[in-house]
């Protein structure tokens, strides 16, 4: 699904962000990309999204060599991806519904399809009741779920999450990753960039560690691992985020653990093109 072959990236100011990176992510995998700040994680994501060009090597996404992709084709590449940002990037003046609908409207989906799909997705992330709220009225975790809903709404084959738990409290961090796991079970490829090693260890997914622009470890694909049920105690959650304050009780019922995340409602083929 995503292949990096001998990819290096040197920025115009001379910063070497990635050095001869070779990574292969299969369709339907859940991959954590970990590493310290400045390790090259964000550059890795930008290259997948084609926000940056590699200095050498090539990248394929969905069997397409995106290194040679023409600029006008890039929007169509991005329609196959859903992006979740650390800072949520929600539009304050829009309601939750409109924030999610926005992603469909900008690719030309019809209003009827937008309404149907957005309501479905908001139900999926547990925010249907808050559809008319403004982002400022929501907690950090809820805002990140809106961001996730927006990433999901166009039914992407890949979800890219850049530090999705960086601005939320520990119990919500766990819930967000769990939600991504559920999405992954339906076949969506998930790539999560994070520097929270402790959180990563609680989930038995593939972990690629980048340091100084190089891949220093790769735990391998999920097939190589045994399926292990995820169990986490409140104490462990508190330990993961020992620096955070005001941690509230974790409500395990807030997001159903076996939420059915499917693409059945998507759009009736109406996410149009221009």
């Amino acid at each position: 699904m995503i292949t990096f072959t001998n990819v290096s990236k040197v920025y115009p100011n001379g910063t070497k962000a990635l050095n001869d990176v070779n990574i292969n992510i299969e369709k339907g995998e859940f991959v954590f990309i970990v590493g310290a700040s400045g390790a090259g994680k964000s550059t890795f994501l930008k290259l997948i999204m084609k926000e940056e060009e590699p200095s050498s090597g090539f990248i394929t996404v969905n069997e397409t060599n995106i290194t040679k992709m023409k600029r006008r084709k890039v929007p169509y590449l991005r329609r196959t991806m859903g992006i979740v940002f650390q800072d949520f990037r929600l539009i304050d003046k829009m309601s939750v519904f409109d924030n999610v609908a926005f992603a469909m409207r900008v690719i030309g989906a019809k209003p009827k399809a937008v309404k149907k799909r957005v309501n479905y997705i908001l139900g999926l992330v547990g925010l249907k009741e808050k559809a008319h709220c403004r982002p400022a009225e929501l907690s950090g975790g809820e805002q990140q779920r809106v961001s996730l809903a927006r990433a999901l709404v166009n039914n992407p084959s890949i979800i890219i999450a850049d530090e999705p738990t960086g601005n939320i409290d520990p119990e919500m961090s766990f819930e967000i990753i769990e939600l991504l796991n559920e999405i992954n079970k339906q076949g969506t490829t998930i790539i999560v960039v994070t520097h929270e090693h402790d959180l990563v260890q609680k989930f038995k997914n593939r972990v690629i560690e980048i340091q100084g622009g190089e891949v220093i470890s790769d735990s391998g694909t999920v097939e190589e691992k045994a399926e292990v049920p995820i169990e986490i105690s409140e104490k462990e959650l508190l330990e993961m985020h020992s620096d955070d304050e005001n941690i509230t009780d974790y409500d395990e019922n807030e997001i159903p653990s076996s939420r059915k995340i499917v693409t059945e409602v998507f759009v009736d083929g109406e996410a149009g093109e221009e």
Partner: protein
Amino acid sequence: MIGLGYLTKEGIKSVWNNRMMSAASIGVLVSCLLITGVAVLLSLNVARIVDTVGKDNQITVFLKENIDDVTAIQKIGPEIRKLDNIASCEFYSKSEAIVKWESELGSLFGELQGEENPLPNAFHVAMVDLSQYDDTVENIKNVEGVDIISDRSDVAKRLTELNILVTKVGAWLVTALGIISLFIISNSVRMTMYSRRFEISIMKSVGATNHFVRTPFVIEGIVLGLISGGIASVIIAFLYEAMVSAVKYIVPIKEIPYSELAFQMSATFIIFGMIIGAIGALISIGRYLNMEGGEILGW
């Protein structure tokens, strides 16, 4: 085109959402349009006055003393009319002239009738184009039987020069104000884009094409131009009447009635405003379209 309704709505909404900046842009654009409009109206009126004065600006072609009425009417008159740049040529007999002199200056001229009349026969000639005054006068002088011509070339030259000056100044003013308007609209749209950079970055991240990103801003520019053109059209009507009244108070002129110009002025203002708005928006957005992700947000 998919989503045009949505994009148009977004463009119009943006004018309202950024109403302070929109109001400022409209204010400046209306001012520019008004100044441009005043220059154009002034130019049109001066051109009309020059035209009118030109038509009224008859020269008197005096014939030699021995030329009688019949020769003048049958021979010299047609020859003058055949020349280029002649609008009209009317015979003015020496008996008409003496009657006029008598009525203006008294009975002193009463005895100078008939054979005693010392005045020559003449023609009153009007020209089509005063800028060709010298050539036309020269051609008339070459007609046999013509003696002297009353010389009013200064008036003709001054009027022509004034018309050229007003036209030139008007053209420069329109160009300069067009560029200023473009700059202002472009800045206004740029401000809007800056305030909506989050949306732009999200649009691009979810796969919006450049057309989709660009269109609402272009529509915003067009709407600003349209509103400005409409407001300027109304104001210029009142401004013109006020200006004409003020000028008439000092100099009696026959102005062009605004009703003759209203449609053309309004259409020009609106179309000019919309074009400036669209171009201004396109100038601003070009920069953002080439940016990606954090770059758009200034990171």
